[in-house]
C-alpha cells in the first residue's frame, strides 16, 4: 500500500466522495450467494413420499378390514333330494338341523349329489376365522365340499357308522368365513368334513350343531358327535371344554397368521470409525506436528476429531412367520445419519487467493485441520474451531429374522437382526481428510460410494394389546463397506446407536 501521507488533495477528495457512496444490490444477488453456499433448497420430496407410503400402509392395514362373507347356514342341501336343484348355500334358509338332518336320512347318494352341486364359496358360515386351519384338511379354493352335517344333541348314542361314507369325496374342508350375523346371534359353528379315509382321523365323521354362545363359556366352539374320546388329528385342539352326552366340545387354538406388518422409527446417534488402510492397521504411535502422511500407523479415530450427531430411521417391513417364534422379515427403510467434523486453524497464515479453487464448500480455500493426538500443545485454540457436518441420506432394504425369545401373556422379548442393502443419495459437500501431506479437509463427495451394505442388531421388549404388539428396544447399525470408494486410503465405517420403537400387526 502506498503511504497515505503522499496523497494529494485530489486523491483525498476522491476518497472522501466515494466513501459516502452506497448502492443496494438486487435480491437475486443474495439468493445466488445462498444457493452457491448452501445449495438449492430442495423440497424433501423423497422423504415426504416415503412417509406418505409408510403411513398409507399403516392406515390401510389398521383400518381396512376384509369384508367377511355374510352367509347363512349352509349344507342344508343334504336334506334335499338329489334331483332338486341345489341352491347356493347363501340363499338357503336356516333350518333346524335336528329336524332335517338326522343320520337316518342321509344317504350316500344324497351326499354325493350335494357334493357335486354345492360351491365352496357359498359354503359355511364360520366364526372360527381366527382359529388355526387344519393343515391337512384345508381345501383348495372353490373346491366342492361335502357339507357333512349332523346334529346330535340328544342323549341317543350316535350312530357314527351310518355316516361313514367311504365314497365321500376327498375334498376337504371348505374355507371358512366369519359371519357377523351369526356372531351377532351368538351362534358360532363350524362345519368340517372328513376324507373318506376316516381311519386317518381315528374316528367317525365330525358333526356339528348349532350351539348358543351362552351355553358355553368360550366364544368359539363346535361340537363333535361321536365318541367322547374322539379327537380328530390335525385339529389344533387346545382344550376340551365340555362334554355332554353325544357331544364333545373343543376349543381350538387361535390361528396364528402367517404374515404380519411392522412399522418402526428409530432416533439414533451416528458415529464413525476410521481405519488407515495403508498398512491395514492402526496404532497409537502418532507423532504430532509432522505431515499426516508420515504417520503411517495412526489412530485416526483419535486424531481426526468428530462429534456424533443425531439422525433417524423410519420404515416398514412384512414378516413371514416360520413358527411361533421365528419370523422372516423384509421391507424398506429411510435413514438420515450425520456427524460433525471439528477442524482447526493451525498454520499462522494460509495463502488463499481469490482464484483458489479447492474448497470444502465448492468456493475457494481449504480448511486446514490440525490433526493431532490430543496433546495440549498441539490443540489449536477453541475459538478457531470450525465445525463441518457430513450428512447421509439412505434408503435400505432390510432382510432379516426376528426371534421371539420369550413371551408370557402380553409381554414378550425378542431379538432381531438384518442385513440391509443400502442406497445413498445425498449430494451435499462432504468433508474428508486429504490424502496428501497438507493435513487439510477437502470435498470428497465425488468419492462417495452410492451402494453399501449395513447390518443391524436389535433387541426389544414387546407388549401386546389387541391385534398390535408394541415394541421398544435398542438397535445397533453398522456400515460394512467403507463410505468412500476407490483407493482412498482412509476407510470410514459408520455406526448408529438408537432406540427402535414400532408395532407389529398380524395380517389376515
Amino acid at each position, binding site marked *: 500500500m502506498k503511504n497515505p501521507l503522499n496523497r494529494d488533495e485530489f486523491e483525498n477528495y476522491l476518497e472522501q*466522495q*466515494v466513501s459516502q*457512496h452506497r448502492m443496494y444490490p438486487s435480491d437475486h*444477488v443474495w439468493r445466488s*450467494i445462498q444457493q452457491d453456499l*448452501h445449495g438449492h433448497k430442495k423440497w424433501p420430496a423423497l422423504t415426504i413420499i416415503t412417509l406418505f407410503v409408510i403411513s398409507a400402509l399403516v392406515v390401510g392395514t389398521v383400518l381396512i378390514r376384509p369384508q367377511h362373507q355374510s352367509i347363512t347356514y349352509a349344507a342344508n342341501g343334504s336334506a334335499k333330494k338329489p334331483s332338486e336343484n341345489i341352491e347356493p348355500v347363501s340363499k338357503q334358509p336356516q333350518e333346524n338341523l335336528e329336524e332335517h338332518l338326522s343320520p337316518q336320512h342321509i344317504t350316500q347318494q344324497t351326499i354325493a349329489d350335494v357334493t357335486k352341486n354345492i360351491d365352496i364359496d357359498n359354503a359355511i358360515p364360520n366364526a372360527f376365522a381366527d382359529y388355526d386351519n387344519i393343515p391337512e384338511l384345508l381345501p383348495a379354493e372353490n373346491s366342492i365340499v361335502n357339507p357333512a352335517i349332523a346334529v346330535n344333541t340328544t342323549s341317543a348314542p350316535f350312530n357314527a357308522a351310518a355316516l361313514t361314507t367311504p365314497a365321500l369325496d376327498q375334498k376337504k374342508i371348505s374355507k371358512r368365513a366369519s359371519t357377523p350375523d351369526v356372531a351377532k346371534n351368538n351362534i358360532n359353528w363350524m362345519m368340517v368334513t372328513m376324507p373318506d379315509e376316516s381311519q386317518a382321523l381315528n374316528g367317525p365323521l365330525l358333526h356339528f350343531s348349532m350351539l348358543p354362545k351362552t351355553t358355553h363359556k368360550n366364544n368359539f366352539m363346535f361340537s363333535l358327535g361321536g365318541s367322547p374320546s374322539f379327537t380328530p388329528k390335525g385339529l389344533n385342539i387346545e382344550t376340551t371344554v365340555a362334554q355332554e352326552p353325544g357331544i364333545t366340545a373343543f376349543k381350538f387354538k387361535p390361528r396364528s397368521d402367517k404374515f404380519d406388518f411392522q412399522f418402526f422409527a428409530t432416533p439414533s446417534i451416528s458415529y464413525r470409525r476410521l481405519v488407515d488402510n495403508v498398512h491395514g492397521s492402526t496404532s497409537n504411535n502418532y507423532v504430532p506436528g509432522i505431515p499426516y502422511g508420515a504417520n503411517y500407523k495412526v489412530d485416526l479415530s483419535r486424531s481426526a476429531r468428530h462429534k456424533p450427531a443425531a439422525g433417524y430411521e423410519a420404515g416398514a417391513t412384512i414378516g413371514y412367520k416360520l413358527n411361533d417364534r421365528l419370523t422372516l422379515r423384509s421391507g424398506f427403510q429411510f435413514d438420515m445419519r450425520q456427524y460433525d467434523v471439528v477442524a482447526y486453524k493451525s498454520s499462522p497464515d494460509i495463502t488463499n487467493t481469490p482464484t483458489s479453487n479447492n474448497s470444502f464448500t465448492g468456493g475457494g480455500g481449504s480448511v486446514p485441520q490440525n490433526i493431532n493426538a490430543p496433546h495440549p500443545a498441539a490443540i489449536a485454540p477453541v475459538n478457531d474451531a470450525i465445525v463441518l457436518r457430513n450428512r447421509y441420506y439412505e434408503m435400505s432394504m432390510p432382510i432379516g429374522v426376528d426371534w421371539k425369545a420369550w413371551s408370557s401373556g402380553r409381554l414378550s422379548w425378542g431379538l432381531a437382526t438384518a442385513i440391509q442393502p443400502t442406497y445413498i443419495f445425498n449430494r451435499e459437500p462432504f468433508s474428508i481428510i486429504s490424502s496428501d501431506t497438507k493435513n487439510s479437509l477437502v470435498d470428497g463427495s465425488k468419492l462417495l460410494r452410492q451402494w453399501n451394505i449395513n447390518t443391524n442388531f436389535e433387541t426389544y421388549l414387546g407388549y401386546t394389546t389387541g391385534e398390535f404388539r408394541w415394541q421398544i428396544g435398542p438397535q445397533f447399525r453398522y456400515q460394512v463397506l467403507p463410505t468412500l470408494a476407490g483407493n482412498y486410503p482412509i476407510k470410514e465405517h459408520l455406526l448408529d446407536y438408537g432406540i427402535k420403537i414400532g408395532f407389529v400387526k398380524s395380517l389376515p
Partner: protein
Amino acid sequence: MTEQSILSGCLQHDPVAQRELYNRYSPKMLSVCYRFAQSREDAEDMLQEGFIKVFTQIHTFQNKGAFEGWVRKIIVHTCINFLKKYKKFNENIDLAYASYLQVKEETVPSLMQAKQVVECIRLLPVGYKTVLNLYAIEGYNHKEIAEMLDIEESTSRSQYTRAKTMLEGILIKKKILEKPEEELNWAAAFKK
C-alpha cells in the same frame, strides 16, 4: 449482532450470520464494484462472486486489522479477476483519443455529489478507471497494481496520470470541481 458473533456464526455456516454480514457490507462493497464495472449488472456479479469468496475464506481472517478492510480487499481482487476473465481490458485508449470523449450534461444525472463523482469515474476507459480506483481510492501502490494487472509499473503510473487528468477534466466540465486557481490566474495573465 456484534461483529464477533457474526464472524463466529459465519464460521459455523450459519445463514443468519451470513445474511447479517452481507447486509452490513454489501452497500459499500457494491459501490466499490460499481466503480470497476461497466454496468450495474457486472457490478452485482462481481459482488456476488466476492461475497462467496468472503464466506468461504472467512476462516483465513486473522483478526489483524479491520474486517471491512479484509472484505474490501477480497472484493477488489474479485473485481480485477472479473475484468480479466471477461477481457474488459482490451480497450487501449490514449490520452489524445480520450480527450475527445465528450461528457454530455445528461450522462451525469444531478444527484448527490458522491454519486456524481462515482459516475464520472465510470465514464473513464476501463484501464484508466481501474488504475485510478486502485491507486487513488483503494490505496495500492503502483508496484502492487502492476502485479495485479500484469502490467509494468511504469504503465501503471502513466495510466494513472492520464486517468487523473481525464477525470479532473470531466469533473470540472460537469462543474463538480472548479478550475484550479493557478489556471485561472494564468488565463487572466495571458489575457492581459
